[in-house]
């Protein structure tokens, strides 16, 4: 029992230890401020923030609809749930290909968009945000839906008998009470967006300053500028640890439940 357990621990912690041991700490400042990392850093945080906003704006209504779906036919809720969860299990590259087929100039939606407005989405910063929102949305929706369902019906009954319309009840009672779940979902989708690679490089490419986010830049730099790649990796590890710290209550209790 002990030996495989230790091995498992090494498998989980070993790569991180190696990364931190081999990181070029003495050149870290210079690398982070350098021409490879700095633009990617700004782009990554900007797009991850934007995609988190998109996730919240689209995901909260989606979560509210799903949370109120108990009266629907079972088949419909199952399909809706599967659609929401798909990006969680889909290989991100597949997501990127699917987004191309939808939004490229010859795509299902991209063709009329290009014809009507001359709009081209792939390989732009907007494409990065869309790819990140695609992979991050399930985290937001599932977290918020769980939180909305967890709000005690006594509060919504009390709000209604105090004159609050269903909309006012949702905005002023249900949503504030679900705020911790919303915050957790936003942090998770932000973290997922920041780490997004497969869908981004497929759907948005790797144009420095336009679509080259941190993970993409790290991958591109690895062959000829490994120092920058490792510096980016360290930044992403720090963000990941910050997310873990921010959500520690949640995943600890989640694992116990």
């Amino acid at each position: 029992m002990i030996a495989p357990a230790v091995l498992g621990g090494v498998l989980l912690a070993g790569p991180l230890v190696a990364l931190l041991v081999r990181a070029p700490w003495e050149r870290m400042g210079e690398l982070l401020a350098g021409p490879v990392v700095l633009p990617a850093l700004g782009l990554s945080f900007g797009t991850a923030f934007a995609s988190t906003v998109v996730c919240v704006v689209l995901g909260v209504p989606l979560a509210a609809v799903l949370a109120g779906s108990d009266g629907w036919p079972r088949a419909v809720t199952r399909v809706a749930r599967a659609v929401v969860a798909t990006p969680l299990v889909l290989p991100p590259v597949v997501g990127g290909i699917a987004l191309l087929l939808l939004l490229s100039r010859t795509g299902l939606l991209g063709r009329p968009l290009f014809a009507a407005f001359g709009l081209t989405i792939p390989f732009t910063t907007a494409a990065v945000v869309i790819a990140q929102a695609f992979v991050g949305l399930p985290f937001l929706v599932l977290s918020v839906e769980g939180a909305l369902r967890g709000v005690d019906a006594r509060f919504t009954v009390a709000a209604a008998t105090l004159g609050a319309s269903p909309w006012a009840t949702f905005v002023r009672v249900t949503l504030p009470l679900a705020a911790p779940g919303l915050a957790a979902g936003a942090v998770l989708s932000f973290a997922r967006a920041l780490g997004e690679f497969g869908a981004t490089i497929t759907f948005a490419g790797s144009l420095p300053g336009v679509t080259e986010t941190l993970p993409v830049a790290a991958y591109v730099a690895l062959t000829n500028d490994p120092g920058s790649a490792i510096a980016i990796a360290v930044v992403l590890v720090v963000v990941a640890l910050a997310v873990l710290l921010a959500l520690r209550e949640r995943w600890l209790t989640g694992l116990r439940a």
Partner: protein
Amino acid sequence: MTGALEARLGVRRGEFELDAELRLVPGTVLAVVGRNGAGKSTALAALAGVTPLSSGRIVLDGALLDDAGAGFVPPERRPVGLVLQQPALFPHLTVQDNVAFGLRTGGAPKAEARDRARAALDEHGLGDFADRRPAQVSGGQAARIALVRALVRRPALLLLDEPLAAIDAELRPALRASVRAVLDSFPGSAIVVTHDIADAEALADEVVVLDAGRVLQRGPLGVLRAEPSDPVVSRLLAGAAPNAASGA
């Protein structure tokens, strides 16, 4: 005086069926007593509009609130206040904002709603708790705050679901007296659901005994005691609260 109620409440839910007539003279207090599952809370939910009627009708002060069809008025548009056993104060709002909530939904500007909420809390001796969160007040205080929150909207009909059941037994008489004082100054009518005959005795002008969804008997408590129509009535009125332990 408001709160003239004419209601025949028909609610079907699986095996259970509520079929009860309730009438209220304006300004009076009716106690609804009965065992667990008698349909007491269902009756309140139907009157509040939380549960639509499957048959019957509810008319309050001449206005139709529900006729088991197109006449359904949703809870937020009924002049009906509801105080639940667990007071359900909104945990994310201060006590004052809890009381102001029902004034804001009625269209009062924020500052005015807060002022009126504060005045109502002061009037009931609860002003000291205005800035606290619900988690920072006792159960008895929460029950009184929930009562004030329902009353500031000046409902024609006030529904109280086991208002004292969650309160420690030794604090109950004092709280009962303060609920009584509040109801005395309330111009509308009220229905108090309780399993505790002491509540019915202290608060109500008349008592309805509900069992298995039907009204067994109604009248002043003294009459019911003297001439119980059914063994269930005499057992309930014997003072022992048959379901006090389970509290629902």
